[in-house]
């Protein structure tokens, strides 16, 4: 199973590559609206990036549960442990 810190770092890199800046902190309560440029379109790109990096597909139900960064990290943990 992947370490939580490792997952956080990989997600951070993906977000940076999509929104093209590092002006955010990977807090558990971080939401899309806190990050400049994280809109519907970049969300889809971030989701796709995570799917490619970690080798699984999100379900639509999963996407709707992603309320903040904490829930995203947790979901990646669960999915990669499966």
């Amino acid at each position, binding site marked *: 199973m992947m370490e939580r810190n490792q997952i956080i770092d990989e997600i951070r890199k993906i977000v940076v590559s999509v929104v093209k800046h590092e002006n955010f902190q990977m807090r558990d309560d971080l*939401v*899309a*609206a806190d990050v400049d440029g994280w*809109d*519907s*379109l970049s*969300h*889809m*790109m971030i989701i*796709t990036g995570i799917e490619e990096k970690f080798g699984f597909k999100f*379900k*639509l*139900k999963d*996407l*709707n549960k*992603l309320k903040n960064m904490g829930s995203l990290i947790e979901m990646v943990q669960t999915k990669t442990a499966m």
Partner: protein
Amino acid sequence: MQLFKNIEQSINSHIDRNAFFINGVAYTYKQFAETISKIRKGISSATKEDEKNIGVVANDDLETYAAIIALWLEGRAYVPLSPETPRQRNENVIKQAGLDTIIDSSANAVFPELKVIESKKLDAVPVDLNPKNVSDEELAYILFTSGTTGNPKGVPITRANVTGFIEAFEDFKLDITKEDRCLQMFELTFDLSVMSYLVPILKGACVYTIPKDQIKYSYIAELMEDQALTVALMVPSILHFLRPYFSEVNCPKMRYNLFCGEALPLDITNEWSQCLPNAKIMNVYGPTEDTIFCTFYHYNRNAGNKSHHGIMSIGKAMKETYTIIIDADKKVLPAGETGELCLGGIQLTPGYWKNEEKNKEAFFHIDYKGKPTRFYKTGDLCRSDEEGDILYLSRLDNQIKIQGFRVELSEIEFFCKEFLKKVNAIAVAFENKTGNTEIGLIFESAAFDTAELMKYLKTKMPAYMIPTQTLFEMTFPLNSNGKTDRNLLKKKLLEKI
């Protein structure tokens, strides 16, 4: 006038039902009525009756919707201003519309330079929903659309226009009732929002909005499932976003799903229809100039549907809308012939706001059924069949010329999609270094080898129509109206070359 009486009557007869569901909170029609009444009082205290156009800061809350209804009951017109829009553009709109006063529900006034009615800070007053007696020729709203020169064009819509739309919509006989749960996914600066809030209000149904900080497509999917939405007007782009997840979407409660604002591909609609096994699906069409939408086509899930290059027909004119197809000399063409679609009738705007030059370009009079009738040129290239169903072919201004040959970009896209099946692709024309026009293809996909595709295209189209440049984008960007942003994609292609 009757429309505004009907609003009053509907709110009064559904006072304990939910009117809005905003960001997880339900609001009753009673709360809505109280909020409308407060804002009415705020308007009449702050302005004179002859101040007709009033701004509304387009937030996602009860006060913003109440402000619209309050202005209508007071006999005024609303001009929505999005706080997310660049400041300069908003200032341009304020100036053009001559706004002195704005209704704002924000904690801090977004436009402190105007007289601000702070709608969250008004005192409670007795409920008063009785509409003022105002001519139907007065305005209901002015929306500003992008102009070719960067100066937004104002489209004023009268109370008679909105009434005409609602009467034509009623003619669909869709049986929407107080039990319905209706999606409102549009920014208030986009006129599809008007149908999305007004139709439910007139039926005592509940309006479900999308919080601005949410990811639109996934929030819509969530609302559809968790809140069992029954009525939804959407842009086709939402389907492109949701397509990877169609197998997981099952919304048996959805009754009416309408699409507008973009060409609706038939193949994706066929797939989507399985997700909504009990819904009537309709493709509706219309520019802001003709009030929300003005033609409709019923999707038939059990038989063939009319389409052109995979794009579903936009159907027939709604009640009291006239459609004609004309050639370059404004001669009306018979069924089967291709020309520019023009619209006339009860929903047609009186003309662009203080813009005589554009009015001369876009509107004209012609004898229609023996009467001189005003028509608007849509810029959409269309053809109608013998049954009167209109097929959308392309934008007139997307027609390009390559070495003198006329090329329809949508035709290139059609053949690409036919070969690639599920990959979305758009074709754009651009000028190369020698000043000649070339065609680029942009795919909504990870990179792949296009050799087989090009081979296929060469079997379908003459050499001059074969694209010369390609670009891959994981997802297509949308403009503020939720449509695929072709201009931005073209820019990205040019940056790559």
